[in-house]
């Protein structure tokens, strides 16, 4: 069952060199309150797994701006000049991964699988050095699971069982990342006090959620 903690307590759990699966897409659905606390605590040499690299000053951009990131696995970083500069200068090591493959590799780790077989990337530089496996006459790339120590995600509401629902396209990678953290910390707008989320409507079952942090962001 989850524990309610402060963003500062969340940041204190994260150590340098931690591998973090970070929810969000172009800084929508990113856990900004927790990220602020990590910047404040100055936890460095982080490895970040995320779909996009957000923007300067937002999402993963906050960590990059503060030079806290050592390596990234992302599908896109065209929207953040600072991460591009740090990749070009060698400060950040990067692996670019097709978005669907990234999601499945993260999901695989959370689901206890060693990896996935995908046709995406066959015949391109993504396939270099990777094993090709033929199933029923079709070729697939063997893409290994991506491990993470922490998942930091952003949801809309939690109930007292830790079940989560999201808001619109702020759902994005969050439910997938939530499965993959050895420790999953969810930042939410509110924890329902008097009711539970309809079990039919739960998106992330509370079993995946270890800690909850109340967001300082205003939501309309």
């Amino acid at each position: 069952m989850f524990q309610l903690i402060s963003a500062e307590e969340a940041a204190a759990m994260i150590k340098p060199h931690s591998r973090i699966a970070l929810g969000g897409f172009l800084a929508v659905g990113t856990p900004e309150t927790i990220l602020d606390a990590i910047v404040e605590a100055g936890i460095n040499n982080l490895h970040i797994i995320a779909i996009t690299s957000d923007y300067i000053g937002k999402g993963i951009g906050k960590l990059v701006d503060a030079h806290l990131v050592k390596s990234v696995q992302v599908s896109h970083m065209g929207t953040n000049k600072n991460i591009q500069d740090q990749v070009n200068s060698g400060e950040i090591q990067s692996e670019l991964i097709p978005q669907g493959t990234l999601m499945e590799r993260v999901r695989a780790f959370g689901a206890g699988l060693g990896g996935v077989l995908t046709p995406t990337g066959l015949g391109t530089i993504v396939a270099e050095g990777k094993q090709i496996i033929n199933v029923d006459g079709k070729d697939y790339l063997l893409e290994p699971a991506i491990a993470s120590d922490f998942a930091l995600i952003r949801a809309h509401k939690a109930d007292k069982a830790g079940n989560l629902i999201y808001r619109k396209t702020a759902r994005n990678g969050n439910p997938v990342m939530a499965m993959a953290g050895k420790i999953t910390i969810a930042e939410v707008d509110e924890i329902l006090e008097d009711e539970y989320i309809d079990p039919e409507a739960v998106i992330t079952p509370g079993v995946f959620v270890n800690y909850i942090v109340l967001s300082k962001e205003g939501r309309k």
Partner: protein
Amino acid sequence: MTNDKRTHIGKRVAQELLDGDYVNLGIGLPTEAANHIPEGRKVVFQSENGIMGVGPAPAEGQEDKDMINAGGGYITAVPGASFFDSATSFAIIRGKHIDVTVLGALQVDQEGNLANWMIPGKLIPGMGGAMDLVTGAKKVIVAMEHCDKHGNPKILKKCNLPLTAPHCVNLIITEMAVIEVTPQGLLLKEITEGYTLEEVLKATEAELIVPDSLK
């Protein structure tokens, strides 16, 4: 690109989107097609960050910060829309549940190979969802200007930039022409009014199969 070219390409792409199709439009020029769907035709647009049923951009002041498309632009949802996580979104894409994807290109060649994500030695923004989209969609349409900004052909005998995927393109729509990728090679289907066959051939490095009707 001039607005005329943009509108022409958008309108021509829209003709390829059929009633009942689930469609993913790439960032930039391809999104123009959404503005030209004929009245009464039901086309459902996906955005790969996690929505099926993308509606028009919201009126100024009505933006919701949790409602964006994969390009980061604010969107609305149409009645019947659904939200889903990114793994489900790419299950839809990779699992051949998208009827048509429309993307831009740096290069396309006569085998239907596509290069649209990286120029070696330059900044590499990342492939995002492009590799999954062209691998998984039932039909891949490239919508682009016929030549690059220096006037060099983009429809080549062989792509020399790193590929997004091999043998994935079905149709190429430019301001000058519509070209189908067939097992025999590139078939010139249409020449836009105002252009001649000679102009199209000169702007195209790849060999084109020209039917008698266009000679």
